């Protein structure tokens, strides 16, 4: 399931819903991305996340489908927030449920690595000097490349 929203999410509640009523599930993995208060030695007061409505949902749904083709998952979830977020706030949740841990770990890692380089989101950091756009990082491309077949 995909959700793109400005509202916060409750990780415990989301994981509970992900496994509810399915006794086949033996493993749940999750990744939660948070807003940091520092970037490149500068203090960050807030972060504004912009996205491309429509394409975001389409791209996330495509990659979730691919994860489900590649790994034996019982269920999966991607929640990504947009709008103005402050340090400590949740940005993203990726969760995968499977019978065994290997599939759940790998699929979760695949989803977040892919999402960071393909999902159309952009971050604007608010610092004392004003706003600045976060630049894409080469290491994120390298992290995604390892999942290419």
């Amino acid at each position: 399931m995909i959700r793109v929203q400005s509202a916060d999410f409750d990780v415990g509640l989301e994981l509970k819903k992900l496994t509810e009523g399915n006794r086949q599930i033996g493993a749940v993995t999750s990744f939660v991305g948070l807003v940091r208060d520092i970037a490149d030695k500068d203090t960050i007061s807030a972060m504004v996340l912009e996205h491309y409505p429509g394409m975001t949902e389409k791209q996330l749904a495509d990659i979730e489908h691919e994860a489900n083709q590649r790994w034996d998952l019982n269920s999966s979830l991607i929640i990504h927030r947009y709008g103005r977020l402050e340090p400590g706030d949740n940005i993203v949740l990726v969760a995968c449920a499977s019978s065994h841990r290997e599939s759940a770990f790998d699929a979760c890692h695949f989803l977040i690595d892919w999402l960071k380089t393909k999902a159309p989101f952009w971050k604007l950091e608010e610092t004392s000097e004003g706003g600045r756009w976060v630049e894409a990082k080469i290491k994120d491309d390298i992290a995604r490349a390892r999942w290419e077949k």
Partner: protein
Amino acid sequence: MNLLYFAWIRVKMGVSGEHIDPPKNIKDIKGLIDWIKQRNQISNEAFSDISNIRIAVNQEYVDIDHPVQAGDEIAFFPPVTGG
């Protein structure tokens, strides 16, 4: 054709999108960008370094040689930084 701009490209262009009707001889993204740039100084500057611009046609990533046609939704944006 509907153009969409995001992040710093949106800021530089001063609008989040525009409806355009380019000449019939514009067949691909490269031709479209050249046409966008020659319209005015703001567009020329926003598209001065296309190595920093990613392109989507109808919400799918494409390369610069991808064909374009009437009715397309064409988005220009920087490399993404979500997650």
